[in-house]
């Protein structure tokens, strides 16, 4: 269930191994010309405005107003929950990968401390996934960020060089600035090479960023043993039988509204860290009154998302610049740092520098305080110097941050989940510390006025922890092979199984877990 980061890759792996596979995807596929004609990135259509754009523009929230993000009546979580946790969800083939930024980082051995498996268990899978999705980057030999198998990155631009220079000079933060690592085609001879259309989070018009539908699905779509079933929304599981095996899954055809039953030897939930527990909680029955696979009580508990801050400025050293350079794909520079809390405690944070020629004038969000007559002049200065820095911190596990079944339903009549989420004092302090670090770095890079703010919880879009992996049945939902403790033929593979969220982006790790599960299932099921 699901065709996002894990579901797509797992289906590919299992289908090539000869298993009979059906992928259930609740949404439809986007039209082939969606990112080229219907809704291209940049200001190619309607000046970059979307029906959901709100004024005055908040530049940091603008990307999340994309029309592909599900609305209140469609998403997994209730509208009431959005005030404390803003869920971003895309109900289409590829899921969130449709607007994925592509950042692909390996976790370091130290990041696996509370996992029932270690870096060595995933290392070869990381490599195989990197070869499948083509990750660009450079080998840096950093213990906190293991190298992978890379294709060459794009060149750094003047803004990247300014910030990298400043990072070298800024003492006390263990700052490192390296070329970003993204699942993006950069090789000139490839037809889908990056064409520098700006930030990837508005969609890629040339399929340079990895997506299941463009990269892997073509290799399995004609196989007799593979079926992709679109508009098929998993409602709930049936069973379990006396042996604890799930008996089937009830699926709603979202176009005809017919409900059918799908039966299989094994089921894999890969619907995302909010939808997966929602399906399990909605599958409560006589033998499992608190939800399927929930004997431990951990389903829905421990929701995680990386605390995130954003800082925007104009780098004055770029004012008046008419230098001709490849404007690129937004974020060419990755920053690794160690920020300090007030008590002197330090924590690792991961940043990315976003710099692009702003065809969409998001900078206006900061110019309202200036008289109208000055704005054209300021816009001119800003145009080549507009720079945003994003930092992510590790998420602090809080069992109280959880999902519970809601009294609200989506427009198919399926109960949504309410999200109970509160940022801890530590997370708030980390956000403050990252803002302070970001200000120092941007000032050193010739930043002028700096507009910094903490992102709303949920806008990190690194959702994890709600069906955590653990070594013992009482402490989690799945074992190290992602099999649920309660049901031998039910597996979970998405962000929900990740028990602890370091500062690094988690998508590559989800894919590596899917690749590993593919290996496990192709032998176990056969």
């Amino acid at each position, binding site marked *: 269930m699901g065709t996002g980061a894990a579901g797509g890759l797992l289906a590919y792996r299992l289908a090539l191994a000869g298993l009979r596979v059906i992928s259930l995807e609740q949404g439809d596929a986007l039209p082939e010309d969606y990112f080229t004609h219907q809704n291209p990135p940049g*200001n190619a259509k309607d*000046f*970059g405005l979307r029906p959901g754009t709100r004024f005055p523009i908040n530049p940091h929230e603008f990307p999340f107003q994309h029309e592909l993000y599900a609305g209140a009546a469609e998403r997994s979580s209730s509208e009431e929950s959005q005030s404390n946790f803003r869920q971003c969800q895309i109900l289409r083939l590829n899921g969130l990968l449709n607007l994925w930024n592509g950042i692909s980082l390996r976790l370091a051995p130290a990041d696996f401390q509370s996992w029932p498996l270690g870096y060595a268990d995933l290392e070869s899978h990381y490599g195989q996934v990197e070869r499948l999705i083509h990750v660009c980057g450079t080998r840096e030999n950093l213990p906190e960020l293991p190298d992978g198998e890379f294709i060459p990155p794009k060149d750094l631009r003047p803004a990247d060089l300014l910030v990298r220079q400043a990072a070298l000079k800024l003492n006390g933060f263990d700052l490192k600035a390296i070329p970003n690592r993204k699942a993006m085609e950069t090789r000139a001879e490839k037809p889908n090479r990056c064409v520098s259309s700006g930030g990837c989070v508005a969609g890629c018009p040339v399929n340079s960023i990895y997506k299941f539908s463009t990269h892997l699905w073509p290799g399995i779509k004609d196989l007799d043993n593979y079926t992709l079933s679109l508009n098929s929304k998993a409602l709930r599981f049936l069973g379990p039988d006396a042996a604890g095996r799930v008996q089937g899954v009830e699926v709603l055809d979202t176009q005809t509204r017919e409900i059918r039953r799908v039966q299989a030897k094994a089921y894999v939930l890969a619907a995302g860290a909010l939808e997966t527990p929602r399906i399990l909680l909605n599958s409560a029955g006589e033998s499992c009154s608190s939800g399927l696979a929930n004997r431990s009580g951990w389903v829905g508990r421990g929701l995680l998302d990386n605390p995130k801050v954003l800082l925007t400025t104009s780098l004055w050293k770029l004012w008046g610049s008419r230098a001709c350079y490849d404007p690129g794909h937004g974020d060419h520079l990755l920053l690794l740092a160690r920020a300090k809390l007030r008590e002197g405690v330090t924590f690792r944070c991961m940043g990315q520098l976003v710099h692009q020629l702003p065809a969409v004038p998001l900078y*206006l969000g900061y110019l309202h305080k200036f008289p109208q007559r000055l704005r*054209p002049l300021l816009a*001119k200065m800003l145009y080549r110097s507009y720079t945003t820095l994003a930092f992510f911190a590790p998420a602090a596990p809080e069992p109280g941050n959880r999902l519970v079944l809601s009294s609200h339903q989506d427009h198919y009549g399926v109960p949504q989940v309410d999200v109970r989420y509160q940022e801890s004092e530590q997370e708030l302090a980390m956000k403050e510390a990252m803002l302070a670090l970001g200000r120092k770095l941007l000032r050193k890079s010739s930043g002028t006025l700096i507009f910094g703010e903490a992102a709303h919880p949920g806008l990190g879009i690194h959702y994890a922890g709600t069906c955590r992996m653990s070594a013992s049945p009482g402490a989690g939902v799945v074992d190290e092979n992602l099999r649920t403790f309660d049901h031998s033929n039910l597996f979970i593979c998405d962000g929900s199984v990740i028990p602890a969220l370091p500062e690094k982006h988690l998508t590559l790790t989800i894919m590596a877990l899917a690749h590993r599960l593919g290996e496990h299932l192709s032998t176990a099921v056969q």
Partner: protein
Amino acid sequence: MTSVHFSESWHCHRVDKISIQIEMHRENQTGDRRIFHWDSEAYQVLLGHLIAKSPYFRVLRKYEQQIGRIAMQNPQISKALSRIYDGNTSTGAKRKSAHDTRQHDLFVIDCFLEFIYFATDDVIRELSGDKTTAV
């Protein structure tokens, strides 16, 4: 038959401090006059007027139809226009609150028009260093 009347009882925020009031009347064949709340014609007239009063008029006038279509698809903009169009019939404290709402609506429209101005090809060419068109 449709007629449009402008008066100067409202203060627009940053739209050249020009006051606007639009009342739209439709006379039927018997001569009755009734205010109607919304139609695309009224909408275009109101938006056209706001564009005409914008400091970015010189560029925006070329995109008037496109702006109208985008505005109609955007719930926040169309609601703001609708409220401006509906006018102010309240009194006392309610009148003050309605005044604040109207100021905010006009501010929102102003931001919307300014965003489009800075996203037009004419202006982007200038910002990016191509001097063929003046900002």
